[in-house]
């Protein structure tokens, strides 16, 4: 669906001629003429207006009664008055009416000072109240959830929170109970409102009825400062504003950016800031002393790291993930490649290396889709990713597209998706069978190949695959956006590119591919050169190094002497935890930048540098759609934490890297953050000329700049798909699929407010398998293959495919990475104790 064309109409408001786009509501249209109309319930992000609060009444010539400006679209020639006595009387009365039951406890209310009800009462109210009767009383304050406090006395029944729950996040939990003056917001049956996006209602509430529990009574608006930056806890990279008081982050608010996050935040982004100020955080360098890590001075830690790395020259493996910025990744790969003579750098901790040709073809500017494209596409295919876990904010964008713009959604994933309900078509294939599935889809779209045979290999329903091909390849169809997860694996990519080629995604403006990387800055890390087979700017390297998996194997075999871990814990992020444990134990030097100590680091790390949180970082990150965004420090470094680019630069100096002559200042290593950015930009041809000023607060997509022409073009399709390897067909055993929950993150585990959501191993079982194995919801079970096993709690999921179970990955221990990937598993009820 193309974006709607905008027509401009002229209307008159308070005697001024105002031009506004046709169809916008009067409230928004009035802003074009600098006229403010007060509103409570109106919020365009929530969809259609409801006109519940009546605050926006205006007089329109030709209509006898006052009209709500929030639900009246502007028309050509309309004459509107907002300053007449009649309108003022109405506004006064509405304010008085809304305050009839409002307790006016502003001094103790967290909203006080930034409260629309206060502002509007001050600006449009009568100033006095005639109300002497007793007010409505509720029990207060109550917990709506562990994260949100509700004060029902303050509620003005604007429906914003309920609409968010019903129409935006679609968790359908919040409702209004009772009628009239007795109405109150709550969940059915009064269970806690726990949902991935629940925190947004705090920001939506125009009064102090819904307030954040972690922020409760922490500060008043005049005590705090706002600091804009970008959240780097997942690839969505939402724009956020940190609320800072006394060098502590107290709250995270959305910083509305229509091209990135649409103004929403997930609860991880909103509440995981508490991990920044966790007591357990490492705030000084630690150096191994015998069998213990001891705090040390920076000089000592840096020289210990430099000498250990220098000794391991030529056999250093480096991994980067998490909040690593482009600059840090660039410096790290330069340090390892040029300073330490090793090519073993990677940022796909749990993935397989992607051939450079395919990467260039996939990242081609013409083939890339943007986030808003999801909303305006004709069809969106979600392939091998669960947006709510992998990039939560995209989940809301897809829902918005389906609900408001008529996007046709297709979901093709191994694991049941929360988007299935909204999908026109959903289908399942076996975990790890993306290659076969995409080959089947390509065949169904008209390529040579036997759809039925390939579907059998992928364990997918051929009828569904054909229906999907019809949906995507529909005659006269509009744009198609394929949202695919990095975890589909490298083998599936030729088929994906062929599907994109057949659908002509590269030729259409609003169509394309959008990758959901596994790590928060996955795209930026790769473009900065943090991968074994490509240098900065996806350039060729003389000799390809080892991938993450090979680094682990080599270190475990003693071929690599040193491991450098930047913002990543391979036990958690990697595919094979036991192998990584062996690797860390065997490597003579392990240098890590980490915010928290894990058991493995405590035992094996040589030097641990304290990692910066995203609130302290300076640098750039790249959004999956190519938007470079800027991280700005919101708070100072706690303890003796230093900027990580400067740590890497120090190490670079210590092992004396010679920077190519292109560096304009003749400095070998960056001395300031912006200098690191400049060196990165000089090294990546398609970032050329980019400055921090140009990126600014809203970011810039490199594909939209002239320098994008320097992008190294990949080969044109079609690509050789190859023969997909059949997935394990278990005889009596079960296929193992893995997923990484949104809550499987160290930040969640270290944030007191979110601790209750931290994941423990959960095994999702289909009802059929559960019945066969005699498992009930909540049972403790033992999952095992190849002599390895983990204990998990069983959860029966309705539309999970029979024969496949799904186990949590991304846990600090005891997750899916303890098992062997791609091998059938057996499930037993462990110890038979059933937890109640």
């Amino acid at each position, binding site marked *: 669906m193309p974006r709607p064309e905008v027509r401009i109409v002229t209307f008159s408001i308070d005697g001024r001629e105002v031009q506004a786009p046709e169809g916008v509501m009067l409230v928004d249209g009035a802003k074009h003429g600098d006229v403010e109309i007060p509103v409570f319930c109106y919020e365009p992000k929530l969809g259609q207006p409801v006109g519940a609060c009546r605050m926006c009444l205006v007089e329109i010539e030709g209509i006898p009664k006052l009209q709500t400006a929030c639900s009246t679209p502007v028309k050509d020639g309309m004459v509107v008055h907002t300053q007449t006595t009649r309108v003022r009387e109405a506004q006064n009365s509405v304010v008085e009416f809304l305050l009839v039951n409002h307790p006016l*406890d502003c*001094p*103790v209310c967290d909203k006080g*000072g930034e409260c629309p009800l206060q502002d509007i009462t001050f600006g449009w109210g009568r100033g006095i109240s005639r109300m002497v009767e007793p007010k409505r009383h509720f029990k207060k*304050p109550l917990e709506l959830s562990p994260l949100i406090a509700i004060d029902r006395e303050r509620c003005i029944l604007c429906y914003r929170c309920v609409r968010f729950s019903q129409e935006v996040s679609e968790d359908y939990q919040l409702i209004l109970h009772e009628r009239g003056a007795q109405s109150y917001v709550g969940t059915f049956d009064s269970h806690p409102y726990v949902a991935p996006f629940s925190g947004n209602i705090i920001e939506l509430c125009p009064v102090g009825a819904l307030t954040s529990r972690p922020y409760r*009574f*922490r*500060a008043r608006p005049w*005590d705090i400062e706002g600091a804009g930056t970008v959240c780097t806890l997942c690839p969505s990279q939402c724009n956020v504003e940190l609320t800072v008081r006394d060098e502590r982050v107290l709250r995270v608010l959305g910083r509305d950016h229509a091209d990135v996050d649409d103004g929403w935040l997930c609860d991880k982004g909103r509440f995981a800031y508490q991990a920044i100020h966790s007591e357990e955080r490492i705030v000084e360098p630690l150096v191994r002393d015998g069998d213990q890590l001891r705090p040390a001075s920076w000089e000592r830690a840096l020289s210990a790291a430099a000498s250990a790395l220098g000794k391991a020259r030529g056999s250093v493996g480096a991994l980067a993930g998490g909040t690593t910025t482009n600059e840090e990744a660039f410096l790290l790969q330069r340090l390892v490649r040029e300073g330490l003579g090793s090519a073993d750098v990677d940022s796909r901790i749990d993935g397989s290396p992607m051939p450079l040709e395919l990467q260039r073809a996939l990242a081609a500017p013409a083939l890339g889709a943007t986030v808003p494209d999801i909303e305006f596409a004709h069809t969106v295919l979600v392939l091998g990713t669960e947006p709510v876990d992998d990039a939560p904010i995209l989940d809301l964008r897809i829902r918005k597209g389906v609900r408001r713009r008529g996007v046709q959604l297709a979901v093709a994933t191994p694991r049941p998706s929360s988007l299935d309900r909204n999908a026109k078509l959903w289908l399942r294939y076996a975990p790890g069978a993306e290659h076969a599935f995409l080959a089947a889809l390509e065949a169904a779209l008209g390529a040579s190949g036997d759809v039925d045979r390939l579907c059998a290999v992928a364990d997918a329903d051929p009828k569904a695959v054909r229906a999907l091909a019809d949906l995507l390849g529909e005659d006269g169809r509009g744009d198609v956006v394929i949202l695919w997860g990095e975890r589909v694996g490298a083998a599936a990519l030729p088929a994906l590119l062929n599907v994109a080629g057949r659908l002509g995604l590269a030729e259409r403006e609003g169509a394309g591919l959008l990758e959901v990387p596994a790590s928060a800055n996955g795209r930026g890390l790769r473009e900065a050169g943090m991968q074994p087979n490509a240098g900065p700017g996806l350039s060729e390297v003389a000799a390809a190094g080892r991938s993450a998996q090979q680094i682990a194997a080599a270190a475990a075999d003693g071929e690599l002497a040193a491991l450098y871990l930047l913002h990543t814990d391979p036990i958690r992020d990697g595919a094979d935890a036991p192998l990584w444990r062996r690797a860390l134990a065997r490597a003579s030097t392990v240098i890590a930048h980490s915010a928290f100590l894990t058991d493995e680091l405590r035992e094996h790390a040589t030097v641990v540098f304290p990692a910066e949180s995203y609130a302290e970082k300076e640098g750039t990150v790249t959004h999956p759609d190519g938007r470079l965004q800027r991280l700005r420090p919101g708070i100072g470094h706690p303890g003796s934490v230093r900027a990580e680019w400067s740590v890497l630069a120090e190490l670079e100096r210590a092992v004396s890297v010679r920077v190519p002559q292109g560096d304009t200042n003749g400095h070998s290593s960056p001395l300031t953050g912006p200098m690191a950015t400049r060196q990165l930009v000089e090294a990546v041809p398609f970032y050329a000329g980019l400055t921090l000023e140009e990126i600014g607060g809203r970011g810039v997509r490199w594909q939209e700049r002239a320098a994008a022409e320097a992008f190294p073009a990949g080969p044109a399709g079609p690509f050789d798909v190859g023969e997909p390897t059949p997935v394990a067909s278990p005889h009596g055993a079960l296929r193992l699929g893995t997923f990484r929950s949104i809550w499987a993150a160290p930040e969640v585990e270290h944030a007191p407010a979110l601790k209750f959501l931290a994941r423990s191993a959960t095994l999702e079982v289909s009802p059929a398998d559960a019945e066969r194995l005699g498992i009930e919801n909540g049972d403790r079970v033992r999952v095992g293959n190849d002599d390895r096993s983990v204990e998990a709690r069983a959860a029966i999921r309705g539309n999970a495919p029979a024969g496949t179970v799904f186990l949590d990955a991304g846990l600090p221990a005891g997750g899916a990475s303890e098992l062997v990937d791609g091998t059938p598993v057996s499930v037993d009820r462990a110890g038979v104790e059933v937890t109640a």
Partner: protein
Amino acid sequence: MSTLEIRRWAPTGDTVIAVQRGPEPGGAGGLYRAFGETLRGLKTTFGRLVEGTYVYQYPEEKIPVYPRFRGRHKLHRFEDTGLEKCVGCSLCAAACPADCIRVVAAENTPEQRVSAGERYAAVYEINLSRCIFCGYCEVACPFDAITMGHDFELSDYNRDDLIFTKEMLLAEPLERTPLRTEDE
């Protein structure tokens, strides 16, 4: 209009406001009016001269202050329950032109109830070396929890000691500053 009609202004009744003029200058009355009042004021001056010098033996003897004298702040408790009146709303900090008040609030729990409202001031500090004693905090306070007291002896050897904490502000001053009675 062909002929210009000039109407005579003839005020009647209420439209006339009689203005009283002052007495003409000159004469004995004029002389008294010029110097008499001055002499009356000088009588007080000369009276004090005759009275002789009196030195207040400060600090043993203190000059009583007027009731509305704005000295060091005081925080108050409810007399019946003993709970603090301050709810930590930070409005005083917002009103303070010298930015010398710092409030960090916390939540009352049933086990530990400090104030009457939902919240209380966990930290309430006034930096008296910054304070200009304007009394805006007193005006801003919605619960009459802070008032300007009468103590003015605030000098200290250490700047840090001039940061008064909540406990110090709640406590009764060791020595009361004498208050001026009505006729003094």
